[in-house]
Each structure stands twice: as C-alpha cells, then as structure tokens.
C-alpha cells in the first residue's frame, strides 16, 4: 500500500558536482519497494506544492531505508540538498510499477543508465536474478561506479571521453561487443529511442523508464501521460500514465 510518511534523513553526501546521495529511514515505504519504482518527495515550504518524483537507487528492506540519488536542477532539489542527518522530509511511495524482475530471471540483461537515469539501475542490478551487464553513460564526471562494479559487469561511456568509451551507451555496447537477452533502461529520451531501435534490430525486449511532469503521482490527475502505440485499457485513448502504468514500459508500447 502506498503511504505518505515523514522520513528521517540518515545521511546526505554530495557524490559528484550537483549530484547528491540521500539515505532516508522510512516506516513503511522501503519494506514494499521494488527496483525501478520511485517516490514523490515534497518540499516543506508551502510554496512548492507539487511532489518531486525521484527513483529508488537502493532499497534496504530489513533496515527500512531508501537511497535516493538526484541532481540539483531547480528549487526543490536545491532544498533537498540542504537536508542534514536528523532532518525530516515528507515522502509518498512506493510509486509506479518498477522493472519486471521476474522476466529477467536467468537472463543476461543490459541495465542501461544515462545521466541521472543511472541511479535506479543500482538496486535493479543488486536484485537481478540473472546476469546483469551494466552500461552507464555520463557527460563527464562519474558517480555510483564503485557500487555498480560490485553488482555486475560494468562498462562506461562518457561524452567527453574522460572514462570508458567516448560516446554514448550504444557506442560502449558496440565497442565492447556486448550481447544480452533483454534491456532495462533509464535515461534521456534520445537514449531510450536509440535503445528501442537497438532492441528491435536485435530482437530483444527493451524496457524503458519514462519521465513526465507529475501532480498526483498516483494515477488520478492524468497530468503525466505518455503516448502509447495502442489504445490503453484504462484511458480508452492512446495515453498511459507514467506514474501509475509506468514509469517502466515495454519500448514497443510507447511512442518515443
């Protein structure tokens, strides 16, 4: 069951320029959370009312803790960056469907993250009952790579060539001659679009985690829809709710 609760900040660190790692103690959310799901984080100032959706980077069900890794891009994330151990923050979750972990069992799976799409791939890699091949694309500065290495085979692409393959995640896949049975991906739309095409070419299923502006985060307001290729059962039009039907979709279900 989804809940909104006051979470206590356990720790917060800046792990790269403008990238923060926040560990939260939750009462109920962590215990039910799955890889690829997200939470809505709220600002407490009364002026910024809409939730900020942030993916789960790590989930510790025993301890009831969650790790969020986010980039400071605006007012909300700026406020979150100021949180210190012992502070509290309102969080709604767990939200969305998450990656289809059962379908990946026993398979070799590309876990592909681009930019701020990297964080959710960490917990996905840790829980995957198969063979994760992590392909992470960065602009320049790396983050979460130590943790990623522990979770599986890791290749890196950077736009400036400062680490790994110079180029994007597909360049890294080709340069390292990598193969897999399916794809789980999170990142900017152009990357997801390219991976959808790659999946079709290689005849492997590709699951993508989508992003859209949200208001309710639970499927009620229809603010966050993406276009679907077929008429959706809930909406009766070619629209799916990213917050409720997603954020993870089979790439062929959605227009990219």
């Amino acid at each position, binding site marked *: *069951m*989804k*809940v*909104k609760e006051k979470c206590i900040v356990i720790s917060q660190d800046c792990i790269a320029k403008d990238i923060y790692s926040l560990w939260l103690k939750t009462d109920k959310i962590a215990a039910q959370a799955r890889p690829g799901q997200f939470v809505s984080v*709220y600002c407490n100032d*009364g*002026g*910024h*009312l*809409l*939730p900020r959706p942030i993916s789960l980077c790590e989930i510790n069900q025993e301890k009831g803790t969650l790790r969020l890794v986010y980039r400071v891009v605006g007012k909300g994330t700026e406020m979150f960056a100021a949180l210190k151990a012992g502070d509290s923050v309102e969080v*709604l979750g767990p939200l969305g469907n998450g990656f289809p972990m059962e379908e990946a069992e026993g398979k070799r799976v590309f876990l592909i993250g681009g930019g701020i799409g990297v964080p959710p791939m960490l917990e996905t890699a840790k829980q995957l009952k198969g063979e994760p091949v992590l392909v992470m694309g960065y602009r320049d500065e790396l983050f979460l790579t130590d943790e990623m290495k522990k979770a599986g085979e890791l290749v890196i692409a950077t736009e400036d060539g400062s680490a790994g393959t110079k180029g994007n995640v597909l360049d890294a896949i080709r340069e390292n001659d990598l193969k897999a049975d399916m794809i789980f991906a999170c990142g900017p739309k152009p990357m997801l679009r390219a991976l959808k095409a790659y999946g079709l070419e290689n005849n492997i299923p590709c699951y993508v985690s989508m992003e*859209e*502006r*949200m*208001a*309710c*985060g*639970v*499927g*009620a*307001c*229809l*603010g*966050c*829809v*993406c276009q679907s290729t077929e008429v959706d059962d*809930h*909406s*009766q*039009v*070619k*629209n799916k709710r990213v917050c*409720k039907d997603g954020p993870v979709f089979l790439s062929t279900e959605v227009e990219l």
Partner: protein
Amino acid sequence: MIDTRVNIAGVELKNPVMTASGTFGSGMEYSEFVDLSRLGGVVTKGVADVPWPGNPTPRVAETTGGMLNAIGLQNPGIDVFCKRDIPFLKQHDTKIMVNVCGHSTEEYLRVVERLASEPVDLLEINISCPNVKEGGIAFGQDPKAVETITREVKKVAAQPVVMKLSPNVTDITVMARAAEAGGADAVSLINTLTGMKIDVERQTFALANKTGGMSGPAVKPVAVRMVYQVAQSVNIPIIGMGGIATAEDALEFILAGATAVSVGTANFFNPYATVEIAEGIENYMKRHNIEKLTDLIGAVH
C-alpha cells in the same frame, strides 16, 4: 451530538466534504489513502460521450502556492465510465456526483441522458473548463448560454443538476443567476483561473497548451470572495472550492455561504486531505459547541 449532514437539492451528504472534479479520478487511486465512505461525496473527473485524448504534455506546472493544469479533459467516455467507475464507487457509502463535459449542447445531453438510468446522485455540468478549444468555458462566459444549456440539461436530467461556474468572468453572480434562471438545482465554484507560466531558461511555455487553469491555495481568497458574492445573489445551494487544504479553509467557504465544499489540488500534496478536513470540521464544531453544520452556512455576511 454533532450533525455534519448537509443537503444539496434533496441529496443528503453525511458531511460537506467532497472531492474536486479531475483531481481524484473516480476515487480508485485515492481509496488507497482514504476511506471513501468517510466523504460526503466523490466528484468524478469530467466525462464526455466518447473518449477524449486530452492535451499534449507537459500538462502540469507548479506555481507559487498553486499549480497550472491543462489536462484537456482526457476521459474514457461515458460507456466505460458507466461499466467501470460507477460500480466501483457504488461499493462505498458516499454520494456520487458525475462531472459532465462536452464540446456542444448535444454532447452534454448525450452524457446526461445516458446517466439518467445510472445510480448516481448528482450531476455537475462543467461549463467552465479553460483548457478545451470548443465547448467548456465557451458556455460559461455568456449568461444567455449558461441559462440555455442549464435549461436543456434540466429537461433530460434524472438527477439534480449542479452547474459548475468559471471564475474567468467579469461578474460571476451574473452567471450564477443565469444558471438559477435556467433551473439549476445548485452551483459549484470556482473552476480554475486561466493562467500562464513561462520557462525562462528554455524560453518556452511551461505547458504545451500555453495557458492552463490555476488552482491550489493561492486561489483561495478569490474563490471565497466569489462564493460569498454568489451566496448573496442566488437561493440555490453552493458547492465551494478553490484552494481548500485544511478544515479552516473549508469552514471559510461554508461561513461565506457554501453548503458543501470540494477538495482538489490539496490531494496532490496531502492524499489524506479530504478525510482530515472532514475530521477537522467535526473538531471545530465540538470546540465551538455547534450542533448542526447547517448553522454555519453563510453565517458570516
């Protein structure tokens, strides 16, 4: 004994707290957070005769103390709505008000006729949506059009008719009187205020639709003023809304003349808001030794 019951055109609500159309779906999603049977009523998302795809995204944007939306009345159409959403709501001990939208009088009437044989309690006719090109607000900004559509709807409606008014007019009391003249059983207000936000970094509109409807706490003073003015001008009940997030907010509307209230945007930042407001109103009544909620309606004038 505290009596929180209120009456809208013969329909008794157990308490004055309803949901605002479009913010609460048909209750399914928020029933994970609140017991719908604790609410006076659930007001559904606007429904049309056929499915509507709505507007392109981004459809929502944050503003200080509020938000803009341009959903464009995406809805699954009346057939699926009757098969799926009404049976869901019927499992709860709450009143059902169906919000109806259309591009033309005929489209409104088709939905209202279809609902005549359905177990719903009230109809809310949305003549005030700022986010669709035809219909919607076009009906809500001309008193003659308001009166005519109200009269047409009343002819075919089996349930009491609540006309939902737009605040995007020079004088909302003119529209309220037009609805009353057309035979409306009640009015609800306010719908969203048309607004705009520009993303200065990208130098574009924040919403794909360019304009959107503003809602949330920031609009509340405007909404309270309008409810008060309408309460002074008509003799039919008013359902008040616009920025209600707490019991105190709801009580402001009731004291200004609203018989019931709808909670919208607040659900987005507090999914428990509706029930907390219902409880808060009871606590207020205890604190002030008020036995009947109806004694508070329009008490400030």
